[in-house]
């Protein structure tokens, strides 16, 4: 009798026409918390010419798989070839016993370490800035709309306002940010937003191929601009140099006034925390910090910015 994982692998193999897939070694990466959690079945390239990674919904009701496949497929069509190479191709999108899954090629993660030694963190930020600029340029749409903002955020914001665990100044800050964005919606372009762009979701390949960006489950298209760059900068601990310059360059490239960036990041951040319900109950909300503007980016400052209790 074979396990659920093994039978999903068999299903994937038969869709790809690979008969030998049922005998290959694999391992399972468990999902994280939250309603959109997914599992990953990793088939390393041991005996096969190439390996695969299958992303499987934890429950039958998990909607994230369909969403991720749809965003990735649309992006690969919309982006220029040299940018779309960084978005992994979905090989199979299927369903097994009520559990939706999709498979992508396995990307060698040892390149991550090698390149980490070679590349300065500053250069990583430069690559991400360049890639996000090209992504923004290709997916840019003129102006957010009030209706879209309401549909995306109003429910979450009213939940935050009603939550007794959230401090009053955070509630006020969130409300102000939302109003700022709503009042100037037409002046803020919408782009495709990855939603979880931290270094762990970027597999650094050899210099010629750049990198592969994984985990598009939290992606929004249309989405808020510049927040991916902020998210990456905040989680790329120990990066040197001012990142305010990078944000200004990005904003200039996609036609966004940098003055809106703090409000955009607040909104995004609150949304992400509120979506992860368990984490939301135990972790404090992070808030925008002026260090992004003045360029003071010492690691301790950034950590405190992300993790210091607000209450």
């Amino acid at each position, binding site marked *: *009798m*074979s*396990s*659920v*994982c093994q039978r999903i692998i068999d299903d994937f193999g038969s869709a790809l026409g690979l008969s030998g897939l049922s005998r290959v*070694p*694999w*391992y*399972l*990466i*468990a*999902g*994280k*918390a939250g309603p959109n*959690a997914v*599992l990953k079945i*990793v088939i*390393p390239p*041991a005996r096969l010419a190439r390996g695969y990674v299958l992303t*499987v919904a*934890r*429950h*039958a009701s998990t909607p994230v798989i369909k969403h991720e496949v749809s965003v990735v497929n649309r992006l690969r069509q919309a982006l220029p070839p040299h940018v779309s190479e960084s978005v992994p191709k979905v090989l199979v999108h299927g369903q097994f*016993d*009520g559990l939706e899954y999709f498979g992508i090629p396995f990307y060698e*993660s*040892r390149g991550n370490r090698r390149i980490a030694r070679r590349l300065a963190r500053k250069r990583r930020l430069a690559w991400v800035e360049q890639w996000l600029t090209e992504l923004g340029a290709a997916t840019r749409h003129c102006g957010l709309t009030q209706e879209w903002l309401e549909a995306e955020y109003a429910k979450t914001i009213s939940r935050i306002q009603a939550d007794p665990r959230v401090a009053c100044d955070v509630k006020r800050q969130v409300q102000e940010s939302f109003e700022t964005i709503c009042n100037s919606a037409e002046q803020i372009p919408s782009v495709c937003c990855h939603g979880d762009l931290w270094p*762990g979701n970027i597999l650094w390949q050899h210099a010629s191929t750049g990198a592969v960006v994984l985990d598009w489950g939290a992606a929004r298209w249309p989405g808020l601009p510049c927040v991916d760059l902020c998210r990456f900068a905040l989680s790329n601990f120990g990066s040197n140099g001012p990142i305010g310059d990078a944000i200004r360059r990005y904003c200039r490239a996609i036609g966004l006034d940098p003055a809106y960036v703090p409000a955009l990041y607040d909104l995004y951040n609150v949304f992400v925390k509120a979506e992860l319900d*368990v984490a939301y*109950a*135990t972790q404090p909300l992070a808030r925008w910090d002026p260090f992004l503007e003045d360029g003071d980016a010492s690691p301790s400052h950034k950590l405190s910015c992300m993790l210091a209790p607000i209450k």
Partner: protein
Amino acid sequence: MGWLCCPDCHQPLSERSAQVCCSDCGQSWRVRHGIADFTDSARRAEDEEFGTYARALPELVRIARHDGWLEALEKVICPLPEVGPGMFSYVTDESKGDLIHVTNIGRGHKVLDLGCGLGAVSVAIAQRGADCHVVDVSHEQTIFTAIRCRQLGCAGVKAACAGDDMKLPLADGYLDAIVMNGVLEWLGCAERYRGSPEDSQLAMLREAHRVLRPGGELYVASKNLYSLLHFLGTAPDHGTRLPWIGILPPQLQRLLTVGRVPDSGARIYGLRAYRRLFRTAGFVEIAAYALMPEFRHPKRFIPLSAPAPVAFRGPDSSDIYNRRLERLLARLLPCEVLRRLVYCYGFLLEKK
């Protein structure tokens, strides 16, 4: 209550005025809050007298019923000095439930979460669409699990309080699968069972074998006695629970400590001894997994048969290797050695 049967003579039970009775042997057991209690509650009350966690459980159930299970955990479990936030993350961590993907548990299967605790795995089983049964020696924990499942939209979870005598109130061949996640090592601590800790483990495994249908699955997750952490001085949940000495056989531990340190009754083993124990109980191994970093917060399930060197050296191994020497050895040792030194194993077994 139609799914329950007498734990001694295995005959169906009848329900009568807050009691379940066996018409064959004449025994009866109390039903409290809709859950039959087959345990020796008087003995357990003595055991739990000093545990702040056990004392907090009735309050946990009360708040869970009125304000919700998560609220109850935040209000009752988080402030406990003994267990605190660690227990909260342990109970709310959904990744534990991902073990069902390395088993064959599917919709409509009758599955028992044996030693359900506060229901982290039971929820995953119920959400998978299986017919979830939960059994625990603590009546309050069983009620909490049933409440938690119901509040998460999984009504119909069948709960019973049993197991302190290594007997299950279920008919022969009733179940399709049983999950014992972090339970096997503690079975020797049950005072109601008269045998040795090793005997109690074997007795429960044999009982699990009895209630499974032929071809049914048993998933057991437990700690590895010969893990890297135990060799480097972490006290194992075994015998006297002393660092280094705890790795030795219990008789030798007693000799070395001149009997001054009491035997906790907890027992964990190495890979070979676990396999021998399961064979003796009548199970056939389908697969064995290394659970990285550990079964309470698993991030990777790696089949021991798979040559997966990358998986054994994943970034999440640092979650368990806190000291510099541990991290260094985890990086330097060959994968063939590392897979024998992992902290936890999971076994998928089958009743032939």
